[in-house]
């Protein structure tokens, strides 16, 4: 086989003419057996972030950065919800307080709306990068026809990121319908502003409580690999976070996951056990 010149074009000297007129599907071979590109090459743009986002390494970086933002959100969300244990007044006051963040400098609800829009963008980027990387990987993967790869090396969390991600996203929609939008077929007893009562009402139903626990376990699995993985995607080379000998990195992932998930699943359980309500 022959390859010529620096423009990353592939050509076979004998069948060059045929190659120029024949389109090969991605991943198939040219006449010489030389592979044709599987994925489209990113075009460089003048906007560095757009430029970055066009490539898989850039998308992983975006996924990591948005992941950190989302980790911050779930942590703050969990922390705020701990006020469930302080009683209805504190929780409702905290919820109302969120809307008056920035008061008196900024108009009412402005900060909370900015946060919501920001979160939406972050979510969209997190999901879009995951989706487009998955598509890229499907094109690149040539496992068809053979047996399955041996998958002992990677842990369960790494292998199930896509599934736990989808579960968490689906749960999120339910969760918003339950407590934010107050859709009646999701939470019939919803009352605007009565956060504590809404939570107790919802979690009193065993099916909902179980769903919350399951969804939070999925979130935990997702967080565990994600919070381990960000170091890698962001390129942390600190020896303490070395992926081979990584007690700190695993420790961080485990501690963070536990800090978010354990309180979260305690809420429905506490309601079910009658500790709250």
């Amino acid at each position, binding site marked *: *086989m*022959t*390859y*010529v*010149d*620096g*423009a990353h074009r592939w050509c076979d*000297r*004998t069948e060059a003419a045929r190659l120029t007129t024949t389109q090969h599907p991605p991943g198939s071979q040219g*006449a*010489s*057996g030389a592979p044709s590109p599987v994925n489209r090459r990113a075009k460089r743009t003048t906007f560095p972030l757009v430029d970055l986002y066009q490539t898989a390494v850039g998308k992983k970086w975006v996924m990591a950065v948005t992941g950190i933002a989302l980790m911050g959100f779930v942590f703050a969300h969990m922390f705020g919800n701990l006020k469930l244990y302080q009683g209805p007044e504190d929780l409702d006051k905290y919820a109302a307080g969120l809307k008056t963040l920035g008061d008196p400098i900024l108009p009412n609800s402005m900060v909370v709306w900015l946060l919501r829009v920001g979160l939406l963008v972050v979510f969209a980027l997190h999901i879009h990068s995951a989706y487009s990387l998955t598509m890229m990987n499907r094109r690149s993967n040539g496992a068809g026809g053979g047996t399955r790869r041996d998958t002992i090396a990677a842990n369960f969390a790494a292998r199930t990121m896509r599934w736990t991600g989808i579960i968490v996203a689906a749960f999120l929609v339910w969760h918003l319908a339950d407590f934010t939008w107050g859709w009646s077929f999701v939470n019939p007893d919803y009352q605007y502003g009565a956060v504590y009562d809404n939570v107790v009402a919802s979690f009193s139903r065993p099916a909902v409580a179980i769903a919350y626990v399951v969804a939070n376990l999925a979130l935990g699995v997702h967080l565990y690999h994600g919070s381990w993985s960000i170091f890698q995607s962001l390129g942390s080379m600190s020896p303490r976070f070395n992926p081979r000998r990584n007690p700190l990195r695993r420790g961080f992932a485990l501690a963070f996951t536990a800090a978010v998930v354990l309180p979260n699943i305690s809420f429905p359980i506490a309601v079910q056990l009658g500790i709250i309500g």
Partner: protein
Amino acid sequence: MSTVTLNAHAPTGPIADRWDEHRFSVKLVNPNNRRKFTVLVVGTGLAGAAAAASLAQLGYQVKVFTFHDSPRRAHSIAAQGGINAAKNYKNDGDSIHRLFYDTIKGGDFRARESNVYRLAQVSVNIIDQCVAQGVPFAREYGGLLDNRSFGGAQVSRTFYARGQTGQQLLLGAYQALMQQVGLGRVEMHTKTEMLDVVTKDGQACGIVVRDLATGEITSFNGHAVLLCTGGYSNAFYLSTNAMNCNATAAWRAHKRGAAFANPCYTQIHPTCIPANDEFQSKLTLMSESLRNDGRIWVPKSPDDTRPPHQIPEDERDYYLERIYPSFGNLAPRDVSSRAAKRMVDAGHGIGPLQNGVYLDFADAIGRLGEQVVKERYGNLFDMYQRITDENPYQVPMRIYPAPHYTMGGLWVDYNLQTTVPGLYALGEANFSDHGANRLGASALMQGLADGYFVIPTTISDGLAPLLGSPPVPLDDPVFAQTEQEVRDDISRWLSVGGTRSVDHYHRELGKIVWDYCGMGRNRTGLEKALSEIPALRAEFETNVRVTGRADEVNQNLEKVQRVADFFELGELMCRDALHREESCGGHFREEYQTDEGEAQRNDEDFCYVGAWEWKGPDTPQALHREPLEFEYVQLTQRSYK
């Protein structure tokens, strides 16, 4: 009529100025004219990759051919130890002259002085070049380059990158080559095997190749052809060379008029892991450094089958220490190899097949502790254990010599041009710098010297007169004719339809060459080999079976042609060994030894390069002699007692 004249074009005058003088006297090609010349480079090892990259940088049109799937896989990659250079970074008395002298003496005074001096001169530039390319040589804590001593040299001049020096140097050259591919100055043909040289009016004008993926036979034309295709140790079948190393390119060039020099100079490395069974496909080399702390012995009684630890001290024969008390286990490669062979031949061999000798670390472990031994040799011990499933910390290693380098090759002049104008040979493929025996860590040096520094200078001398004449066009009948001969050859092999595999005949050939033209040679054996090889070849040509088609990936078809060439080359090795009635370096004729069993040179009658000219398939090659003159070194007898 003889067409071969051996004019070395070696410059005269003070030896230190010869290369300078020569660089001044060669004809040059103007930078703007270089793109008008096409150079075909065959092989992408150290010599080939370095030459192709350097010539492309100069502006020549370069086309590169390798039978590997990537240029990075050439067998230079397997070199372990290091690369010599007369940098004198250690301030231990090294100099260009000392490296020159060591190389001439190590080669048992059978190499050309001018070439060897040039090699020593450019050795320092090689290290500079490789470091700039990013070769991660070992460093000291101060950040400067580390050196070690090697192969018994009295100075530390060997640069190394762990045990993977060859790999790192090759990657450096490969990367430089790939850069030129990216710049469009090199056209790369992987999985493409050269099967013939095309000559017109006695001048090389192109090559015929087979695309190993599609089986297609095509030709390429150019103003010069560079063969950088390595050595021929696989003529022995079992060697430390890679499975696909072959002499086909060099041999086909020989059949087109290039003289083949000193084919009997082959080097046998003393510390390899012995064969385990008859299906063994190749031998693995263990670094020579093991002999620094290991003691070599065999049981005194020939039929002793006890495990080593049950053999008491007084029933062991530490034969190297006994025969060579001053050098002991550190006797040079050829000496200790031959001693091991004598022991095994006398029935003292150990191991399940009685084909090895012990290399015992028990004393070293007792003296230094296991930890120190582990630090020094841990990776080698691990490698040994992986292959043999024996723990060398507890059980002595089993070792035996194995072929691993060939000093002989295509005859070249000072410009590295063969006896066919326009056809050059670089690296192990030529015969030039190592004489009858190569020093450790010098092969990498020579390959890179030829590729980076010699050929880019000397090639213009051959090209400059061709300015204005395009290469011979591909529609010239010489190309069609040579292609047809290659195609006929291929169809002939596919139609034999015999009963035995190619490997079977390669193994049988290897046994003959090893038994009679291996570590020890004598007239009777060589004459026997010269009658057995043609007989076996006749059987091979009528009874070999090659399955598959010509127009697809067909590894047996590739192999059968290489083995066919090894048959002819093996015969020439024996003929050369028979004619050279002396012992020198890797060529040991049992009739010619001192009373102490050392190699006995005959400088009166054999101080020359023996270059053989092809005379057709049924006529023995004709010998031409290039006398060797030594002005700067004194011919002495090597002694290691």
